[in-house]
């Protein structure tokens, strides 16, 4: 079966005014997503997670341009679409949930108006059945007494409820893919757990595919089937979540997993030295080499290729290359 979404060698760069400086925010990102699957896009701030998502839905800011690669969704190439065509895809086929629920909701319109809008325009539902549809959607995201709640305005709801309303809006157009960009960052832990459970239930019922953008590995462990770890605009490792958590191959993935405290354990944390790189001045070779505990001379000189570890599992690191360091050094000499 063909995948629902195939992103291949996507390159999105930001250009400074006049084009003298280029920031390669996304530099050769490839991944696929099947129907009903959840992929976690993990990485630190500024690694290109959000730009990847905005490239998929065609909502890039004016300074950014897709300079290479393709985004294929349900057999259609999205990067070549005109804005008018993209508007018919967003909301109906692909929906997005953003980080700040207060900023995604319009304070001047009732919850009903906002949840009904995608269903009205994309699914041509009208009248009483529209009202029913909205109530159904609100019930699906566990809003108590939806019939009265939908007459309310965003300020009358708590943060967790607002974020669930945003989830209902995302589902209103009946999309096949939802992109959730750090949807729980502003929520409290118990509210976050409730929200994630709602999202999981909905996904199991409706079979919507999910891209989960996050820096929280716990969310990935809870929610995702596969994960892709991004560093400096590239996916350095991707594969099934279970395999990566058990036996990550890329030093950055290993370091990320080691730097998260485990409940009930006082073991010292593994701290990654240094800072995430500035995308405008990337190191040569492998972008992670200045912070990597296993860096070799080759890492600074040459960019590693994607190495296949198992089915659906790749990592970008010279350690996985058959060639050893000595052989490389002697070849140079």
């Amino acid at each position, binding site marked *: 079966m063909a995948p629902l979404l195939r992103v291949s060698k996507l390159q999105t760069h930001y250009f400074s005014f006049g084009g003298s400086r280029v920031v390669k925010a996304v530099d050769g990102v490839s991944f696929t997503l099947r129907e009903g699957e959840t992929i976690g896009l993990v990485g630190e701030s500024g690694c290109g997670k959000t730009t990847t998502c905005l490239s998929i839905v065609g909502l890039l800011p004016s300074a950014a341009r897709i300079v290479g690669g393709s985004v294929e969704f349900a057999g259609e190439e999205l990067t070549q679409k005109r804005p008018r065509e993209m508007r018919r895809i967003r909301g109906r086929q692909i929906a997005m949930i953003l980080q700040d629920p207060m900023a995604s909701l319009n304070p001047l319109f009732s919850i009903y108006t906002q949840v009904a809008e995608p269903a009205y325009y994309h699914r041509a539902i009208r009248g009483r059945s529209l009202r029913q549809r909205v109530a159904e959607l609100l019930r699906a995201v566990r809003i108590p007494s939806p019939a009265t709640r939908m007459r309310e305005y965003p300020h009358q709801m708590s943060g967790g409820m607002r974020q669930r309303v945003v989830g209902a809006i995302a589902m209103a157009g009946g999309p096949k893919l939802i992109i959730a960009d750090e949807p729980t960052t502003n929520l409290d832990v118990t509210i976050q757990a409730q929200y994630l459970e709602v999202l999981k239930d909905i996904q199991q019922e409706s079979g919507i595919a999910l891209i989960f953008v996050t*820096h929280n590995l*716990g969310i990935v462990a*809870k929610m995702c089937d596969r994960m892709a770890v991004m560093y400096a605009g590239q996916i350095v490792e991707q594969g099934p979540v*279970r395999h990566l958590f058990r036996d990550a191959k890329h030093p950055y993935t290993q370091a990320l997993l080691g730097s998260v405290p485990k409940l*009930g*354990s*006082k073991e010292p944390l593994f701290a990654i030295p240094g*800072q995430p790189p500035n995308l405008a001045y990337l190191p040569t070779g492998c972008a992670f080499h200045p912070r990597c505990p296993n860096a070799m001379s080759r890492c600074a000189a040459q960019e590693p290729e994607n190495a296949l570890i198992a089915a659906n599992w790749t990592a970008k690191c010279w350690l996985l290359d058959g060639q050893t360091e000595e052989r490389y050094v002697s070849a140079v000499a």
Partner: protein
Amino acid sequence: MSAPLLELDDLKKYFPVSTGALWRRKTGSVKAVDGVDLAIYPGETLGLIGESGCGKTTTSKLILLQEPPTGGNIRYEGENISGLEGRALMRYRREVQVVFQDPYSSLSPRMRVGDIIAEPLEIHTSLTRAARAQRVAEVLELVGLQPEVARLFPHEFSGGQRQRIAIARALATDTRLIVLDEPVSALDVSIRAQIMNQLEHLQETLGVSYLFIGHDLATVAHISDRIAVMYLGQIVELADSLELCARPLHPYTQALFTAALPSHPDQRHEKLKITGEVPSALDPPAGCRFHTRCPHAMPRCACEAPVRKEVAARHRVACHLY
């Protein structure tokens, strides 16, 4: 065990709420902190955990003398701090310092790093300019920065480095207690571990005490010796960190553990039993404040507030179940 460094005794802070446009009348009060008892011992880390609005930050403000308490006492080395004046007050302010959550707003963008760190020294010590510069270099090195960065401005640093600068400022004046108000929440994942390790290392070398406020259970449990769980202005459970992780007793603490994200995809996960959201502190539920969301609520919980009792060694919980 030695005498506590800081003791909170039935501490209360109510914020008045008034309504009406012209003749504002006091109509009620938000009970942000309502009867908190805690003790922090020299050289230990006390974790304070709870959801937003539970009174964590108000507690820290009371300790830092940014707000006067409505009731109760704070004792520092056995002495009530509400009566402190003059030199004794200055000494308290010198020895109790704070690091805030957001290092982007807690450092003045108009001051050089050296001046930021030297400011408490100017206020609290009679050191000469050269001696202050010497001390600034010392604390910068303590937090893992080069002494040369003293002449740079905060915007030249990343979030993690700024947080190190904030820690250096808090350490400059022979500090004995640092209130850490969510010091790693605003930082990147890979940087968090750096700062946490740095804090632990500083405690080992300097013997400073921490009050570590946070909402992420795993982080707080990792760094703390003891943990106090706060819900709507009250401490519901207090225990050693490892004991609390092994045996959370209060239903709210148990809910926090259930809500905590797994550290591995294979970890078995039970469904969260509590529903709804934290009630308003303006009108907190009668009896046990958690009874509206508690899966084990009994009729008694709605009318009678539970008192905290010691159910195991150094493990105290306020719940009618025990």
